[in-house]
């Protein structure tokens, strides 16, 4: 074994970095290699958003306007109701008709009364029931000879930008940035700490700033995929609009990625085990999954909760993404959301630096 050893070590020592570039470059390369060699991580970052978009796109694809099922025991009423194509009319004996309503198979029961009036039975908390009631009444009144005093015509609006898929794609993009960033950073850092690799790196001249920056830069690179894939897929497959400037979208996503990276660093700043960091990450992100309006608008939550919900970084990101993509908002118009994300970035990063366990 001794033959392979140079006689004096100074002969093998070359000044400089041996052509390897700045340590930050090597650290970022390590991040990328570790990520790319983890099939699960790649799945979550790239394929999961596509699958979710496809699934939701299929579930909420644009169907023709809903036909509402109604029932009646009178053949006269039935023929009047059939004049409206939006009603699917069943004619049954009174008892059977009542059963159909109570079992929820129809949304409206139209009963004739002995005095010639009509009784509508329906659940007024169900929008379909209310709609069916209005349509049924109009059909019956018209059949009885009512003329509408004001002439009208319908123009149907079903354009891109107002569908559910248009609403949900920005939500999924925001959710993807948050989830991937928190898990990616949290696992990577805590795994290094568990392996005592952070401590080993601290025993070299590596700078702490380079170490933390390498995680942020790595997330920036994954961001291109994280945002590009679901947005690109939404645009190509569903015609989801991107009405704002592309540069504005880049700025928004970069700021959001930095804010969630800082939050990820904070979650990972002390934990020594994967279980420990998982708990913290869930604690941080589950409220946002629920409250921040990924799948439905967060305005449905009570007014009292709104200031809290607005202050969450995911709410800020998703609101800004929707405003940008669907309504073409520019950066100055997104100032409140950008401010919220910036504040999370500064506070979380400062805390993470203070708390970080470098061993």
């Amino acid at each position, binding site marked *: 074994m001794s033959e392979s050893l140079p006689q004096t070590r100074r002969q093998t020592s070359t000044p400089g970095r041996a052509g390897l570039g700045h340590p930050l*470059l090597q650290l970022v390369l390590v991040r990328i290699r570790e990520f790319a060699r983890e099939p699960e991580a790649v799945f979550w970052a790239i394929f999961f958003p596509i699958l979710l978009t496809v699934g939701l796109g299929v579930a909420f694809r644009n169907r023709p306007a809903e036909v509402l099922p109604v029932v009646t025991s009178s053949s006269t009423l039935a023929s009047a109701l059939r004049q409206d194509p939006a009603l699917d009319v069943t004619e049954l004996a009174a008892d059977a008709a009542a059963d159909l309503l109570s079992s929820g198979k129809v949304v409206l029961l139209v009963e004739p009364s002995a005095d010639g009036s009509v009784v509508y039975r329906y659940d007024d908390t169900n929008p379909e029931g209310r709609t069916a009631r209005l349509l049924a009444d109009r059909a019956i009144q018209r059949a009885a000879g009512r003329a509408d005093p004001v002439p009208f015509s319908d123009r149907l609006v079903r354009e891109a930008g107002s569908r559910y898929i248009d609403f949900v794609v920005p939500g999924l993009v925001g959710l993807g940035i948050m989830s991937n960033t928190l898990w990616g950073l949290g696992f990577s850092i805590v795994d290094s700490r568990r392996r*005592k690799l952070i401590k080993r790196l601290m025993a070299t001249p590596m700078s702490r700033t380079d170490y933390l920056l390498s995680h942020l830069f790595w997330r920036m690179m994954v961001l291109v995929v994280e945002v590009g894939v679901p947005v690109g897929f939404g645009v190509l497959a569903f015609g989801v609009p991107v009405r704002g400037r592309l540069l504005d979208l880049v700025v928004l996503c970069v700021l959001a990625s930095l804010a969630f990276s800082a939050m990820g660093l904070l979650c990972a700043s002390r934990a020594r085990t994967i279980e420990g960091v998982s708990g913290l990450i869930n604690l941080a992100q589950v409220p946002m999954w629920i409250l921040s309006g990924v799948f439905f608008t967060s305005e449905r939550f009570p007014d009292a909760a709104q200031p809290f919900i607005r202050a969450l970084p995911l709410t800020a990101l998703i609101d800004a993404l929707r405003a940008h993509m669907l309504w073409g908002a520019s950066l100055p118009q997104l100032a409140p959301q950008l401010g919220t994300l910036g504040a999370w970035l500064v506070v979380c990063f400062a805390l993470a630096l203070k708390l970080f366990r470098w061993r």
Partner: protein
Amino acid sequence: MSEIETTSALRVRNLRKSFQEVIAVDGIDLEVRAGECFGLLGPNGAGKTTTVEICEGLTEPDAGEVEVLGRRWASDADALRQRLGIQLQETQLSDKLTVVETLNLFRSFFGQGPTPGEVIALVQLEEKRHAKVVTLSGGQKQRLALACSLVGDPDLLFLDEPTTGLDPQARRQVWDLIEEFRRAGRTILLTTHYMEEAERLCDRVAIMDHGRVIARGSPRELIEDLDRQGKPLTELRARTATLEDVFVSLTGHHLRDE
């Protein structure tokens, strides 16, 4: 070797460190001379690793002075890091990186030193150059860890239990490497609880127990001292004492365990 001819690579005075209630290091003095291989011996929990990590600037001492290569951690940390080679106990390098990628990373932190290819040749991992760390055997991983400590062409090497957990063949390979480093003029501080290892590799040793140094000198001196005292050997065999006998005689752990 006289004190006048040699300079100190490491000087430690009255070092103390406690963790909560436990006193890990209880007033230690050490001197490692430039160019020697110094062994810090002791049973598990004696305070070896804490002592070494303080010398490596990874742990803050409660009291005492540490002078590494004539410098102090408080004022010269950045310069010191460039000149030290450190191998920690139990570091698991990233499984998903290859041997050369791992060394590229470590080499990039240093302003001088051999190329990753040269270090790979040195620890004889050429065939594993592009193998992922996860596929390496225990001995190969340990040689990679040694390679990582050598990329900065260090003046002083800290090796914390470099052969723990290795099979006899892998251990001998690591010993050969350490002997080569020593011959190349590096100063080495290693910890071990294998007396055979210390006897073979170290010019001088200090034996620690309960956070204190309880004996110091060259392995030969310690063995001669024991022979002079006429203490009984651990096994009834007609042979001369070994460092193992010195160790057991001083720390008494075999008796304590019984």
